[in-house]
């Protein structure tokens, strides 16, 4: 996609009326928002703040309330309780057309009876932009998504990927305060999806509009977002940068949803130590323990474990399974504390040696250890 100098209008950060708030102010704020459909609680007492200019992802499994949250920000659903702010303004009761927000719909929802030009111009026309400006801005927006020259086509004459770009241009041309994207890449094949992830990120950098991106794909969220809210059953389970969520998941659900992790049950045995159920004490940082006492689960990512070495934490075990997965070799190791998955980089020659049935010494530093309340993904 063109990120060349062809589109100064869209890239320009200041808004027409100069009312863009100082960067410290959040663009979207949800305060204790609940949405109930009959007896289903789709969104449950959710509070959220989205910083201006950020690429924000709502990540979670299907049915956890992501779309409903997005639709409430867009104005298509009214919360059962709670307040929604865009910048300083309380927009809870405002209809969609009075909100300075645009949406890229999952189905694209392009107007089939209108040309690509008219699709993109739709929002500008409704707001009464002057003719010349409409032509210029639509041109810029189509240039931004690398669709220049297709103005006269009808949506059905474009491929899925092209339609997706039109939907993006149609929203961005209005320079909204916030752009909402509901699984925008869901309908594309894997290769195109990977490509569009990078392009979307590039476009967001260029236009500096706040993006709120809904996805159930953890890799997509990690690749694109500055901050991710992991949702589960209508609530935010944890909010943070991709690396925070990965390195320091606070719940078993987050640890399991973002990548693979080993969770070993144990009991807190000091202000920086946990005694595993199978015996043996593991050192953690006080930070990771975060004041927990009693029963906890200890978490280690498989790639943080070394085979041999002199790290503070050691666990002895027997190799049960070994499988070669290209960049790494995966071992399943039976230890007194339970089964542990280990990824061993294939750059290390020693890795090739461990055969099924051989003894292994697993090593990892306290900083690579995180602690969650329980091994259960969904607390009862």
């Amino acid at each position, binding site marked *: 996609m063109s990120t060349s100098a062809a589109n100064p209008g869209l890239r320009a950060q200041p808004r027409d009326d100069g009312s863009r708030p100082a960067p410290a102010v959040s663009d979207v704020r949800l305060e204790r928002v609940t949405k109930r459909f009959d007896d289903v609680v789709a969104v449950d007492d959710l509070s959220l703040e989205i910083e201006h200019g950020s690429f924000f992802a709502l990540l979670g499994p299907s049915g956890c309330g992501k779309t409903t949250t997005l639709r409430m920000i*867009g*104005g*298509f659903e009214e919360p059962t309780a709670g307040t929604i702010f865009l910048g300083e303004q309380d927009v809870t009761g405002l*209809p*969609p*057309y009075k909100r300075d*927000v*645009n*949406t890229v*719909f999952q*189905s694209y*929802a*392009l*107007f*089939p*009876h209108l040309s690509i030009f008219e699709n993109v111009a*739709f*929002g500008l026309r*409704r*707001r009464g932009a002057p003719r010349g400006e409409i032509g210029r801005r639509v041109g810029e927006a189509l240039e931004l998504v690398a669709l220049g020259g297709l103005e006269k086509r*009808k*949506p*059905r004459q474009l491929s899925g990927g092209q339609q997706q770009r039109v939907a993006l241009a*149609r*929203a961005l041309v*209005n320079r909204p305060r916030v752009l909402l994207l509901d699984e925008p890449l869901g309908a594309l094949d894997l290769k195109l999806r990977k490509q569009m992830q990078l392009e979307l990120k590039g476009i967001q950098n260029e236009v500096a509009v706040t993006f709120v991106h809904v996805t159930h794909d953890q890799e997509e969220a990690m690749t694109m977002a500055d901050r991710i809210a992991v949702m589960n059953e209508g609530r935010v389970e944890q909010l943070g940068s991709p690396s925070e969520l990965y390195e320091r998941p606070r719940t078993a659900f987050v640890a399991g949803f973002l990548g693979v992790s080993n969770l070993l049950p144990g009991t807190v045995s000091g202000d920086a130590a946990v005694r595993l159920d199978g015996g043996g004490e593991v050192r953690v940082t006080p930070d990771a323990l975060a004041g927990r006492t009693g029963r906890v689960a200890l978490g280690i990512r498989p790639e943080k474990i070394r085979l041999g070495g002199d790290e503070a934490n050691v666990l002895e075990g027997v190799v049960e399974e070994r499988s070669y997965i290209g960049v790494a070799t995966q071992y399943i190791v039976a230890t007194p504390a339970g089964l542990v998955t280990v990824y061993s980089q294939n750059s290390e020659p020693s890795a090739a040696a461990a055969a099924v049935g051989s003894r292994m010494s697993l090593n990892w530093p306290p900083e690579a250890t995180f602690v969650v309340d329980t091994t259960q993904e969904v607390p009862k």
Partner: protein
Amino acid sequence: MHFLHRHRGLVPYLLLAPGLAWLALFFLVPMYYLGYTSLQTGDLFSGYAFSWAWENYSDAFSLYRGHFARSLQYAGLATLFALLISYPLAYWIAFRGGRWKNLLLLLVIAPFFVTYLIRTLAWKTILADQGFVLDVLRTLHLVGEDGRLLATTTAVVAGITYNYLPFMALPLYVSLEQVDRRLVEAAEDLYASGTKAFLRVTLPLSVPGIFAGTLLTFIPAAGDFINAELLGTPRQQMIGNVIQSRFKEVADYPQAAALSFVLIAGLLVAVLAYTRAVGSERATQGTVA
């Protein structure tokens, strides 16, 4: 079967054959006889003879121009009223009908369970001088003490509107039902109020329904004679009444045939012009992308 395997190209034509034969037998042949009859002279007693009697056509224009004009006018008005009544109805059923949709649609076509003639006779009773509708209108001073409903242009146009309403409502419903609700949301997302979203998205996407509905209403309405006969006076006579009386009462078959031909040709030209104006692509294409 061997034959079909070897001549696969023939299959479509074989499938078309029954339909084509039907059309030839029941449309082209009668049309030929209609044209043939329209150029005859004579009467019931001395018989009819073909004589290139073009005067049947010049008479059709000179003597019955008023009836043609009235037919088009009444049919046009009835189509307009049917559209104005049906659109909100179809819109409401399609968008708000929920689980009552099928029942409501059934109610729309319910009048079809009663024959056309009986329905129109029922209207005669409803609009009668002693009927309650006139009573109410008189009480409200919307109609003068000696005002009437029956035997007026209003009654005829109202009757036609009523009788052809389902032909308008059903195609409208089908096209509105197909309008993707997410497009309406997209329009509202792009700063269109409810009204603007309707005008810019829903309405244009329902054009195929409007097109089909107006044709299905206008064409039969233009040839209608029952409503003028039962609800009107000689001053409301439409071209259908003339054709009917020329044919059945006076047995002036050539004149009746010529009038029929002019009506058919006129409607054909009108439909072509209308299709042109709406744009044949928009008129027939589905609303889905």
